């Protein structure tokens, strides 16, 4: 059962992808994308966790005491910013789509076809 955290991450990813593919609303879809991405945070922080380890902040503790991996935390920070940037862009596109087509249902937007 020590694999539960990873299973949670995989679950979130699958659930998020389901939401993205079946969404009827671009704003809803953008939020589903953030859910999909949250699986990568959960996975990153889980793989960097060290049993009985403290946060990698050595104020008051001496360097060298057991601490969790700081690298995954730095990566997560970047990931969060990426997610904000992408959500902002997709929402802006959703607003444009709504202004032009009167709908934010991606299925109804299929203006261009192959």
């Amino acid at each position: 059962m020590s694999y539960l955290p990873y299973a949670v991450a995989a679950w979130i990813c699958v659930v998020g992808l389901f939401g993205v593919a079946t969404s009827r609303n671009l704003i809803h879809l953008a939020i589903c994308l953030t859910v999909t991405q949250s699986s990568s945070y959960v996975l990153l922080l889980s793989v960097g966790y060290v049993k009985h380890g403290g946060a990698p902040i050595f104020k008051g503790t001496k360097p060298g005491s057991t601490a969790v991996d700081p690298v995954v935390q730095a990566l997560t920070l970047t990931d969060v910013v990426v997610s904000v940037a992408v959500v902002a862009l997709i929402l802006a596109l959703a607003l444009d789509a709504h202004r032009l087509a009167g709908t934010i249902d991606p299925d109804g937007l299929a203006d261009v076809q192959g």
Partner: protein
Amino acid sequence: MSWIPPLLVAIPLLAAAVTAGLDHVTPEPLQDAIVVAAATATTALAFLLLWSSEGHEVVHWFGGWQTRGGVALGIDFAVGPLAAGMCCVIGVVVTLALVYSLTFMKEAARLFDALMLAALGAMCGFAMSGDLFNLFVWLELMAVAAYALTGFLVERLGPVQGAVNFAITNTTGSYLFAIGIALLYARTGALNLAQLGQTLAHGRAGGLVVVAMTLLLCGFLIKGAVVPFHLWAADAYAVAPAPVCAVLGGVMTDIGLIGVARLYWTVFVAVDRGGAIGDVLLWLGIVTAVLAGTMAFLQRHLKRMLAYSVVSHIGVMLAGIGLLGMTGLAGAELIFLAHALLTAGLFFVAGILHADHGAIDELRLRGRARGCWVPAAAWLAGTVGLVGTPYVGIYLGHSLIDESAAAWVVPLLWLGSALAGAALLRAGARIFLGWGDADDPLLGKPFEEDPHERDILRPLLVGIAVVAVGAGLAISVVPGLGQRAEYAAERFRDRGAYVAQVLRGRPMPPPPALPVSVLHTSLDSLLYGGGATVFAVALALAGLYRRRLPNFVSAAGERTLGPPVRVLHALHSGVVGDYVTWVVVGTAVTGAAWAILLR
């Protein structure tokens, strides 16, 4: 010369910050000068880097965080001739596109320039980076810039819809990529590519590594618009402004392939068994080349046609990479060089047509550009270069791929570029010569157009298109280029030397003296190249004069080709939910294939 690599990122990014930051306070000519100067300086430095990477990888450890005891601490750029060459092409294409857009894009020009420069810096960073997460960062930066640039023409629904599909599909890919990074990091505790490969070489490939590889490579294949991840490409390229298309189609799509090659030869080659990883890539490449070539032939919208032509060449290049040999990779490189310039040139011509006539539809433009000899010559010459007529354009790269490919692969790859070339030839003949029928139901319904008027400096646009096409055509006959591409490929594939230099600072063996002559190609390639040209011309004529074919021929054609064509059109539905579904399907199937082959 290890100071050059960071500059290729820093200069464009700083210029992007300056140009958008000082939008309201500096006069326009100065702004234009800053933008073009930054892009030109980046390009010039890329060529200097190419020259100085001849003998060894140019390694730059950011912040001076060198390796300690074989453990990489910081982030490195490790640049060999292949990566440096990529940066050169990226720089040239972006610079041309920026000059082209000086008069082409007036509205919101500063924001446009800032995003183009950010994309330039990101693409260079991606080509040079030696760190897995750093690759992700540059990938996201170029993607975010590209999404916004695609939706640039916000007065119309098409661009917005194209940008939505592009953004959502690619973001899904990026997030799968991020999960792949986390998995691989959990297994190895490293992010540096050299170190990752070294760590994996010691263990056996378990499920973890196979799945991580699937997620990482599929993330790149989505960026690279490989079937079945290609659906977004036509939607996005059809609607973006011409200079943006030139950058997206010419270099940014191919970036995904460089990612695939980089990850394979620095990391996953260590866990490959009998080239199984390459086999899957080869298959994907063949399917992509043929399917996208067919789709190109079914388009009437010039930029959609070009988009599928790009995807079909992506397929050929991916197949070259998937062969896993030195010549295959060198061939992919040379195709990239020629294809980037030619595609950019053709997009530039399409932009001129759009500006002249307010239309971008093959049938609607029929005969309207008669007498525009220079654009016509550029278009037709570029098309011939993209087919791979002997010693023109992508021919040399194609012939190198032929050398290492199995006999049954070669005609399929030539078929892909011939199909795409036939489509472009047909469009060119119809638009510039007025040949062919005025209507063709096979090509689907017309697209909404925006008749916009722009105050353009036409000679400048034509000049840039001619320069791009001319440079692309010459790639096959530049003396010594073929040998250097082979040497660059050999260096790129040498994981041992790469690891030794990046992690331990060991020098590389000195480069051999390379002859300066045009590479000799085999008779087979000459025949295939000639055959592909003849086939493309014949097919183009058949497309133009379909109605005049004997009745029984067209009836048989309709019976056999009609249903698959309708299925193809239906699959490219423009609905983003479908695209994401195909992304998931593609990832799962590719992963299953690798799981079976690598077990």
